[in-house]
């Protein structure tokens, strides 16, 4: 599903430049649930941004579902993002003046899905995350866990190939975190490829594979015995 070879990325900071990714090689198959771990500054977020086409690498190749991602202009990147990827952010990033269902329907809007169908699909995903009753509420009227579930529903609505979650539990207490991870596991069980960036070990243990980054390099890549989040709840 994802094939990355020799990926480099550096940022200019003043006169000097900071080499963040120093040659990443990783291959992720369909249906995997991968945790990307590392301390802050290890380059995990940068990697996720490049995977999410929010940022571009300087060197190396990136192949997503057989399509090589290169020469991205903004329009092309937007279309790829819309078609291939679903994002879940630490700070939820819901649009605060739109109701839950409108937020979920937004990627479908950019996919030019007709109104009625859009609404139907959005409702379907809201039901999936267990928030059908909250469809008409604004994000400000929801709890953190609910917001993140809305965000997951939104990420799923576009039926992406890969779900990218950047610290999805970073702003949540542990109980809520496990609820969210349970949802992520359920989605993974259905066959969706998911990448989770996290620095919490218990969250990482709920994935099937852990990739450990340090100073821009992968220092460890191991399969783990997945701990079901439902055991904690």
């Amino acid at each position, binding site marked *: 599903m994802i094939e990355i070879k020799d990926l480099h990325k550096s940022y200019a900071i003043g006169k000097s430049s900071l080499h963040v990714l120093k040659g990443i090689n990783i291959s992720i198959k369909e249906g995997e649930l991968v945790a990307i771990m590392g301390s802050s500054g290890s380059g995990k977020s940068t990697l996720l941004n490049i995977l999410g086409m929010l940022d571009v690498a300087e060197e190396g190749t990136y192949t997503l579902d057989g399509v090589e991602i290169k020469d991205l202009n*903004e329009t092309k990147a937007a279309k790829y993002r819309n078609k291939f990827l679903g994002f879940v952010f630490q700070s939820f990033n819901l649009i605060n003046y739109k109701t839950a269902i409108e937020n979920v329907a*937004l990627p479908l809007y*950019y996919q030019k899905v007709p109104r009625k169908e859009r609404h139907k699909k959005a409702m379907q995903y809201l039901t999936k995350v267990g928030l059908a009753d909250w469809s008409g509420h604004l994000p400000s009227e929801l709890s953190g866990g609910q917001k993140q579930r809305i965000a997951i529903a939104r990420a799923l609505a576009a039926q992406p190939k890969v779900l990218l979650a950047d610290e999805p539990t970073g702003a949540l207490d542990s109980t809520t975190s496990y609820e969210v991870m349970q949802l992520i596991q359920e989605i993974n069980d259905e066959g969706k490829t998911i990448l989770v960036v996290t620095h919490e070990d218990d969250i990482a243990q709920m994935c099937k594979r852990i990739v450990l980054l340090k100073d821009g390099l992968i220092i460890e890549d191991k399969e783990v015995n997945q701990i079901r989040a439902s055991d904690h709840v």
Partner: protein
Amino acid sequence: MMLLFKRDIWQEIFGSIRKNRARTIITVIGVLWGIFIYIVLSGAAKGLDNGFEERFEDVAMNSMFAWAQQTSVPYAGFKTGRSIQLKLEDVDLLKRRIPQIEFIAPRIVKGAFGGEAGSVVFGQRVGVYSIYGDYPVLSKIATQKIYNGGRFVNEGDIAENRKVCVIGERTQKELFAKDEDPIGKFIQIDKVFFRVIGVKKFEDGGGFGDDGDITIPFSTYRKLYNTGNDVGWLAIAAYDDADVIQVEKNVKSQLKKIHQIAPEDERAIGSFNLGELFTRISGFAKGLTFLSLVVGIATIVAGVIGIGNILLIAVKERTKELGIRRALGATPSEVRGQIILESVFLTLIAGILGIVLGAFVLKMIAVLSQDTDIPYTNPTVPIPYVLGALFVMVVLGTLIGLIPAQRAVSIKPIDALREE
């Protein structure tokens, strides 16, 4: 362009406008004010223009007046400072020599330009009024509006030297009781009884005359005041296609010839033409219209720039939202289109509100000034001007919207998302 007709895009726009209510209102007020000023100014200018035109419609626009003064140049054996007196014979001579003259009315007055006015008595009431001696032809030069039941001086009155008079509105009010019909009543003018044949509605026709004037037949005037063939001044109307300024020159030079005045004497014959005055006044109104156009457009531009400014701030405020949208797959052109449409939409709404409000205020001014002396009639702004202003606003709104739109897409989604 298809963008314009999609319900979804409008929903997005309404959503973001509703969310930013305060900024929307302030923005709208900026443009609304601009178009409001434009509509009110140009409507008022048009109203003044119409008002002047209405004020002058009773006076032939190609009319002029000529009167005699004192010579300032010695000529043909006469010394300087000789008083000139226009005579009735001049009328025929002028008419014969200047073919452009359509009507010519000799007039004479007692009391209007200094001198003793006529003292008038009716029953117990007395008054002092200017007495005019006139020919019926005057009504061809300056419309004489006579109230129902009355008439102006006619040829018969002149031929038979009838002692009849037309009185002014004020004269009627001062001499007669409220419900008394003055027509047919006899009033004493300088101890001679005159029958009232009409009440004249006062029309301001260029300077002198007031609402108390009394008009009697010219021939009767001559006898009553022993003025012989003397004429006070001449009222002349040229044909519609004639150049009244040229006619004025010709009239003066002919009068100089008749009365043996030096051709270069500028003071001996006075004259005044309404055409020139009217041109000047309508020029003033046109200047006002132009000024209102300039001021209006400038205010609209200022308003639209305000929209651009506020949208620019709004884009900054919404950086994160726009970042989310782009992470979810909004293309730069979709983001740009949305912001431009927001700009245009706000401009249009503001414009339409401004036009409605402006029209309302114009209507109010019109109602308030209806029964006053202010020359102000039917203040309108031509539809093409209104549409033109709207068009200018839409174009400016689009152009100004481009700035924040470009800014919105120039921010990378990653940076936008990082912003807290």
